[in-house]
């Protein structure tokens, strides 16, 4: 089971705040984050990696991206 964060339409720094908040809440597991700008994609993956999570997948989703991050 993965948690889903819908950060579409949210501007900086909300996608990262939501991602980091979920990372702190879960500590480990799998999170899917929906974003709709390249800036948000870069910021979310950068923040996830800095917290020791692995970026598993980035796939096009609608007009944006679905980012999957994981920590075992």
């Amino acid at each position, binding site marked *: 089971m993965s948690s889903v*964060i819908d950060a*579409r*339409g*949210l*501007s*900086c*720094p*909300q996608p*990262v*705040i*939501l991602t*980091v*908040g*979920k990372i702190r809440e879960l500590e480990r597991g799998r999170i899917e984050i929906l974003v*709709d*700008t*390249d*800036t948000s*994609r*870069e*910021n979310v993956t*950068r*923040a996830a990696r*800095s917290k020791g999570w692995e970026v598993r997948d*980035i796939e*096009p989703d609608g*007009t944006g*991206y679905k980012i999957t991050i994981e920590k075992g």
Partner: protein
Amino acid sequence: MGMKNVLASRWGIIGVGAAIGILAAVLQKLGNPGNMGICVACFERDIAGAVGIHRADVVQYLRPEILGFVLGAFLSALLFREFRPRAGSAPITRFVLGVFAMIGALVFLGCPWRAVLRLAGGDLNAVLGIAGLAFGVWIGTLFLKNGYNLGRSQNTYTSVGLLMPLIAFGSLVLVFIFPQVQGEPASGILFYSTKGPGSMHAPVLVSLGIGLVVGILAQQSRFCTMGAIRDLVLFGQTHLLGGLIALTLFAFLTNLVFRQFSAGFTGQPVAHTLHFWNFAGMTLAGLAFALAGGCPGRQLFLSGEGDGDSAVFVIGMVAGAAFSHNFGLASSPAGIGPHGAAAVAVGLAVCLFIGFTMRTKLA
């Protein structure tokens, strides 16, 4: 899609900051006002003067750098397939934040870009401004931690995203139809300063060219001066900070080469020495930028890549410049304006109202 963006890497943003620092010092060498190679707030204020929505005759010039920022970001967004028309995230809030960001910046006499450029030129008053900026951004992060947000934008018509680049292009056309006539205070419908900071500028094509280059680099690197401080405070991240420090350092080094460095508090170009108001003005600006999600430069670049809400913030800043000069809110080298102190107090109250009340749980 998913292409590796070199300019958004660690060294990419540092390189972009360094390039902006050098180019700003070069613009100053070529004629822009002292420690004002690039100042987004000052230049938008000059644009407000050029179209006559304020009539302070020393600050009237349709600065091509600003038009270049928008058009460069637009071209970059098209080239890298990042042009995304979007709008509808609390536009009136963004307008009001833009107004007060400008009012605060003009009490200090500079936006965050000019604050570090002033420091790089040896103006020690900038230390108070930068401290105020950091304090304002820190207050903003407290609101962000407690759920403050502007709400979601929606994808919208391509034409919505095109309007700001079109406004920039149209303004550029005006610059060429009504070019400056030496010694004349107006040319056709545009006003020009014959003295003061508005009369000091690099050649039009140089300003435009550097503006375009900075627009392209900043759009791709996501360069943001407010974000540099915010991300450090909020996440302990130093990514954007690297760009801001590089800008400061390389502007300083270039100033040394051009003999544009002179350390001290007094006699600095387009600056006053009222420490408290330098601090308080930038506290207001920093808080407004933090609540709006970007420094004035970043808002221009976002407006170029189709963000209609950032465009509203930019228009708010231009309107704020008009209020500043029409109502005596803006400072001058002689000190703060007659109603500058009151405007800072009102602005802080408005920002606190927005910060406390615009909260929702999004997740």
